[in-house]
């Protein structure tokens, strides 16, 4: 189950940033992913929301600044990570 959620997050990030899912790791952030700009961040938010059927709040959106944080935030909702 653990892996499944991580895989789903990676899948979403891969689709949004147009990078291979297996290139995403704990260092993935706007610094390492060139296409991660403010518009793409908006896409990331709505895609994650759609994927996990959740609504993120402003603070969470602001805090999603790298892959580990995204995992933490999604985990809050799923309680399974």
């Amino acid at each position, binding site marked *: 189950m653990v892996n499944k959620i991580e895989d789903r997050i990676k899948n*979403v990030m891969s*689709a949004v940033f147009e990078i291979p899912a297996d290139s995403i790791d704990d260092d993935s952030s706007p610094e390492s992913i*060139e296409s991660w*700009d403010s518009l793409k961040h*908006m896409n990331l938010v*709505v*895609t994650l929301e759609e994927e996990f059927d959740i609504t993120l709040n*402003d603070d969470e959106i602001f805090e999603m600044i790298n892959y580990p944080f995204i995992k933490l935030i999604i985990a809050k909702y799923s309680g399974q990570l």
Partner: protein
Amino acid sequence: MTVRNLKYSEILKRNSDFAKLLSDTGYEIKVLSNIVTSQLNEILEYTLRVDAIPAIVKSGDYDNIVQDSLKYQNSNVIIIFLELSNIVDGLQFKIELLNDDQLDEILEKTKSEIDLVLKNFEKTSLILINKFTSIHFCSSNIMKNNLEELADQLNQYLEMRIPENVRLVDLEKVIANVGVEKSLDLRYYYSSKALYTVDFFKAYAEHVKPFFMSANGKAKKALIFDCDNTLWKGILGEDGFDNIEMSPKTKDGAIFYEIQDMAISLNKQGILLGLCSKNNPADVDEVINSHPDMQLRNKHITINKSNWSNKVTNLKEIAQDLNIGLNSLVFVDDSSFEVNMIREQLPEITVLQVPERLYNYPKMLRENIGLFYNLSFTAEDRKKIKMYKQQVKRESVKKEFTDIEDYLASMELKMTIHQDDKSIIPRMAQMSQKTNQFNLTTKRYTEGDIKNFIKNEESMIFAISVSDKFGDSGVTGLCIINFHDEIQSAEIDTLLMSCRIIGRNVEYVFIDHIIDMMKGKKVNVVKAKYIKTQKNEQVKEFYDKCSFSLTESTDSVRNYTLDINNYEPKQLNYIEVINGK
């Protein structure tokens, strides 16, 4: 599977797979908007690529509809997404306090912009304009307010005004299909001027798809019906001539009555009708010729394949006989067996199945009516336009813009220059960190850095705020200069503008002012550079346009020098310059 059932991430994935198959010459669609609609681009691309239209959808500059109408005349299709609530920033609440004159001014300004844009796109083959809507902000209002009134007046104007290459998109229908609540994501409206959800964009893409199908010769041309339980209730061969139902007087008959009526109406619009059913041909003929409740008669039916051969063979023959492609056919049948067989063996044909809950049958057909949509301008359209034209004859002389300068002049632009202004340090730092597109060097500075530039005797930092007659866009431009007094030269370290004010030629007035100031400080030579990033292609030649000379150019950097005596100011007198603090 329609786009509406796919997750956005799935659409992005499949779309990038499609992208690999595209050749260079795509079908170019430009979305010009005064709000952020970038999520529409890939959704619409995917929606069209599924049907082999090699769509490449790109957004114009934010809130630059008029300016972009000069740039994209050669696109295949233009979509104009002019959002009512952002015609003037915050219009949805400001409008209720405006007086009649102010309301009139907004109305006239918008009409003139529409006119200018349509004039510029005169030769473009297809332009889709969204009708105005206030539904997001007014769906629970009992009384009609100013925003609704403005939407009505603008829509009336659009209906009257549209030339032959323009089609209107009824946004309220799209919003109704999704639901007001699910259409809007207000989080991003206040922070980023994005208003709509991906669910809305999926529905929008589906809604406008027929325009593109028709423009690419992919509209369906013929509607072919099975007979038993598709055109009438019952099985002719078993129940007999007297017992099949299609009379409006019986519960189920009424549904088939409605279906036949819809078919006839499509036929009147030029859609060919045909039959493909397993029946004795003579029996079917008898119903067509003499059943009292049958509405479809021989004059409506172009082709009739009622026989005992299999339907795959029959449908192929129908396409051949009508001399149209299989992909121009829509086939309706009630049997899952037949439906699946055709879908499998003739995937080019669009197959519709009579729903199990019969009362949904007319609704299902109605939802698919877009398949037959034809762009061509009908006599009916002409009549309607004439009617509107008479209705609006009272329309008095309205200001018409002759060109872009004239348009910009009408905006009453004012640029306020702030020099070394400590009170806006956070905003200046923020701009340097966030601005990507109009940013010549993309150097990122903290508040501390900015403070140092202000303190330092050898540098100056300028910010501009821009306003027009409808409002103030705040501090939206920045320029940092380092002076080397001993050699009478200066260097432009940073020059950037927020995308909110691009397209108003403010940048040239800003540069004019800066050079003027340098002259006052006895500078002889100005150095400047363009450093390439992924985002700032649009300013690659900015300094060339400002009479700087290119001294050195590599793939990533362009170095410029200006002999200050050679500077040719643009002197755009329609932008008033105010010296702030």
